[in-house]
């Protein structure tokens, strides 16, 4: 188990680095241009973009839990760059395939893609930062099983698209594209990628939710109506408490699943639970925060929207709460009533 203090240090280091760099102007520009070089470069220089990718594979090293600590800080800052995609997702995918790690932002996606005679066919839907990435790691079905194919995005046809936060979510047409490199991977690679995708989103949600709490507590403490700060009204205070509760739920779920991965991959049950909890929390946190901050909260200018638009998007990326709850429910039901409590009370495993 990675010591809690180390994880907090990683979180703080990334938070410090991002504080003055992710400004409202930068966020507006990123939504317009699809890229934020002044945010990416310092993270890259600091070695934070490939945390969770083994050093031997060209990454910065570190566990899944450390990678998720980076993501919590990135979520809190609303950093408009593909940190999850470069490290935990594409980076680890390439490492598993034994392929070299290209420099710069990377991404990956899901979709039915096949490899025949050296060329790909199929589409990836809603790929994060596909055009901005230097390479896309594509998981495809080859003639002899699953493969990872390294693709240069400029050789694909990309159709634009966004999530609610204006983050690029593009569709990538791979028909006829010849990858730069191909390597076979074990059959469970797709499932592991989906798990890391969902866990990464849970960590981002946990970070953003905590920042929403701070923003909302501050605003409601300063906004005066009827002669006192609105946070003194019990009905408003109730919103604050529920935001705090859901934030702690999301964070505990994401951190438990991340820490439970030890030096390996996160566990199926842990991730399903974390994703179900964090995705549900995202919607509750956003709704309560907007109610508590009145009209100011829904303005483009106010610091809340960049966070809530992300919460509303991230909760469904890599599967929403119902999908993960259903998945988890089937697993738990299959175990039968006697296994229910022993399974759920297993808690955080001390490494694998």
């Amino acid at each position, binding site marked *: 188990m990675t010591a809690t203090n180390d994880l907090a240090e990683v979180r703080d280091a990334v938070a410090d680095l991002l504080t003055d760099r992710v400004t409202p102007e930068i966020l507006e520009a990123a939504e317009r241009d699809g890229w934020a070089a002044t945010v990416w470069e310092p993270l890259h220089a600091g070695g934070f973009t490939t945390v969770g990718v083994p050093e031997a594979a060209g990454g910065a090293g570190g566990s899944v839990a450390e990678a998720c600590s980076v993501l919590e800080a990135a979520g809190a800052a609303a950093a408009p760059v593909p940190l999850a995609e470069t490290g935990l997702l594409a980076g680890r995918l390439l490492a598993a395939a034994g392929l070299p790690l290209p420099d710069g932002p990377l991404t990956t996606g899901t979709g039915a893609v096949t490899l025949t005679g050296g060329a790909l066919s199929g589409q990836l839907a809603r790929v994060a930062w596909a055009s901005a990435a230097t390479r896309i790691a594509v998981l495809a079905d080859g003639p002899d099983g699953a493969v990872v194919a390294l693709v240069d995005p400029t050789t694909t046809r990309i159709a634009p698209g966004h999530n609610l936060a204006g983050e690029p979510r593009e569709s990538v047409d791979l028909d006829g594209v010849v990858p730069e490199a191909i390597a076979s991977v074990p059959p469970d690679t797709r499932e592991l990628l989906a798990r890391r995708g969902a866990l990464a989103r849970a960590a981002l949600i946990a970070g953003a939710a905590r920042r929403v709490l701070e923003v909302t507590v501050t605003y409601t403490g300063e906004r005066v109506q009827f002669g006192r700060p609105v946070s003194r009204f019990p009905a408003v205070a109730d919103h604050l408490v529920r935001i705090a509760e859901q934030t702690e739920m999301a964070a505990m779920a994401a951190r438990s699943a991340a820490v439970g991965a030890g030096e390996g991959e996160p566990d199926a049950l842990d991730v399903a639970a974390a994703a179900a909890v964090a995705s549900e929390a995202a919607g509750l946190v956003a709704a309560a925060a907007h109610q508590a901050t009145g009209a100011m909260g829904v303005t483009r200018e106010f610091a809340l929207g960049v966070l809530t638009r992300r919460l509303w998007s991230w909760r469904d990326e890599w599967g929403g709460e119902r999908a993960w709850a259903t998945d988890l429910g*089937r697993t738990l039901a299959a175990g039968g009533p006697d296994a229910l409590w*022993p399974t759920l009370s297993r808690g955080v495993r001390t490494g694998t």
Partner: protein
Amino acid sequence: MIFEPTALSADEEKLRDEVRGFLAETLPPDFRPGLGLGGRHDPEFTRTLAQRGWVGMSIPTRYGGAGASTVRRFVVIEELLAAGAPIAAHWIAERQSAPAFLRFGTEEQREWFLPRIAAGECWFSLGMSEPDAGSDLASVRTTATPVEGGWRASGTKVWTTNAHLNHFAAMLCRTTPQAEAGDRHAGLSQLIVDLADEDVHVSPIPLIDGEEHVNEVVLDGVFVPDERVLGEVGQGWAQVTAELAHERSGPDRYLSILGLYRAFVDVYGRDPDDARAAAIGRIGAQLWTIRQLSLAVARSLDQGEAPAVEASLVKDIGTTFEQQVVEALRDAAGGEIDPDGPTMFDRLLAECVLNAPTWTLRGGTTEVLRGIAAKALTKGS
């Protein structure tokens, strides 16, 4: 906030296995689980548990306890509550009274009460609420006046769980009139009242499920000797509130529904449709997370912290969750609620629906807990 994931050590896991093994041997196969802290009052079970050293675990060995950490106690009570074991006889004595004696009691009181509590032979009720003092506990009117060698207490307590079965109750009384004490939180004291005393009159208050486990307790000038005052005279308020971090965030706040959840999986878990699978999964995910929050509080208590606000949050999250579970499983099962239905699920659902309203009331209402948490969150504004 102190919420960080914490794992059980190998030793703690071993203890858990022992408790599981014991429960599997002890509870009959057709056992109907109690609803968490609403488990049945069973002196025999309490004594058996005590023989294993699992009652009053945090009591130091020199007073007959196990001298165990908060987390080890957590491990044991979590398993007992998950099984719906009949823990009511020792529940308050072990959760509330023993820690209070340790912190505020005299050496004499510790030597007398603690070994008896740890042996499962001395059971307590909580005498806080009164007809006019619910959430606003400081407005209690039960009054104790000094007499030769002690106090005479008069007043009426209500909702006193199991006062008809237990031996003692720690009664919060006013010992200095408010006019003299000034501050309304001053002048309160905790008196240990012998519930078998002839000047104590216990009568049941039936609840909506027809059960009679809460009582009205009239103190009719009952004599309480000086050596039965818990802690300092006048410090009752501080003592009562200091107990809250220990009391609020435990597994009793999210495990009342475990028996129902299990029974649902038993009846509807074979090849569930999507809606039922989603219900099972959502409850599992929440439970898995809340348990980690509660365990984190226990661990931080062992590290010498006093996470009172976190404890309030966990209690609120846990009890709200419990109520949602009842409604979610009722909805997923479909059909009418039948208290005499053929399955354990039918019967437990009926019991849960009738008991769920109390989960967010007892030990501090949702509104009061959120008030405490909000104050901490907005400190400074």
